[in-house]
């Protein structure tokens, strides 16, 4: 499915979401509070979409809020979309996808480690890259570590 068709199709499925054409792929954004798991379920199980491959999962700190960014690919149709989900900065919480896409189990641990996003329903949510006793979430924009970080 081409990008234009995808946008039309997605708009039918998710009238509440805002869908724009990004630099490469359609970007579909949800405000915080939207039912995330059912969205993913539709995207994965719909026969014309079949987004079965999550190839990138990350988070961006916009200082006022977080945005979870999911890049989805369909191994059957080879079309991609970018899924964005806005998160509250004070209590960043989102449903875990680790039972939908197994790969996200590790990606979510990494995001928890570096951004402090809580993934509800994650089987093993603990720090993965940093030590257990690390204080703070280093990829947040307000993170500062005067001891380890030497600024140029």
């Amino acid at each position, binding site marked *: 499915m081409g990008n234009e068709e995808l946008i039309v199709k997605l708009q039918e499925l998710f009238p509440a979401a805002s869908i724009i054409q990004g630099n490469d792929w359609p970007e579909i954004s949800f405000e915080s509070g939207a039912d995330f798991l059912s969205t993913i379920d539709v995207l994965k199980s719909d026969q014309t979409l079949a987004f079965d491959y999550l190839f990138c999962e990350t988070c961006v700190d916009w200082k006022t809020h977080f945005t979870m960014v999911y890049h989805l690919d369909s191994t059957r149709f080879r079309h991609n979309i970018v899924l964005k989900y806005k998160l509250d900065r004070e209590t960043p919480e989102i449903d875990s996808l680790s039972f939908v896409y197994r790969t996200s189990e590790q990606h979510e641990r990494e995001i928890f480690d570096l951004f402090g996003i809580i993934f509800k329903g994650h089987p093993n949510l603990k720090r993965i*890259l*940093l*030590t257990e006793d690390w204080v703070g979430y*280093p990829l947040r924009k307000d993170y500062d*570590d005067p001891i*380890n*970080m*030497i*600024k*140029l």
Partner: protein
Amino acid sequence: MDVIITEPSTPFPGSVHEVPGGGIVLSTLDDVINWARSNSLWPLVFGTSCCAIEMMSAASAKYDFSRFGFEVARATPRQADVIIIAGTIVNKMAPVLKRLFDQMPDPKYVIAMGACATSGGPFFYNTYSVVKGADHVIPVDVYVAGCPPRPEALLHALITLQEKIKSGLTRDQIRAQFQEDGK
């Protein structure tokens, strides 16, 4: 400081004392011990990143550090003599490195290979998790610059370490010597 490599192969320490019918090699026990130690540096299999690949290249047929007797790479620190820190040391790895060093029996030597192990290198500024030089964790005998140093540079470092062992001086003595030279 330049390390001058003169002899093509390592001679047994001491001088030949000419007596009728031949010669006797005279040597002190210390020299013999240092000779043995310097010619039998078994490295620990320890590579964290890019420099480990160049360390593997140094072991490969083209550069072949087995010529010096270094090829007996031990996987267990108990049997190793020299730890080549090939790669970045991060805060999470630092206690492990310290522990590995403590597990090695004396005499033990450390080579900091590459910019990361020497000073943090490319990850010196604006990183939150990198140890800025392995010598913050364990004492280092020889530093090699380069990112990563080519295999010959590692061989050069190993020869430099051999020279140091043969001289029988400690790290502090050598550093004090340089400071005197500098003034």
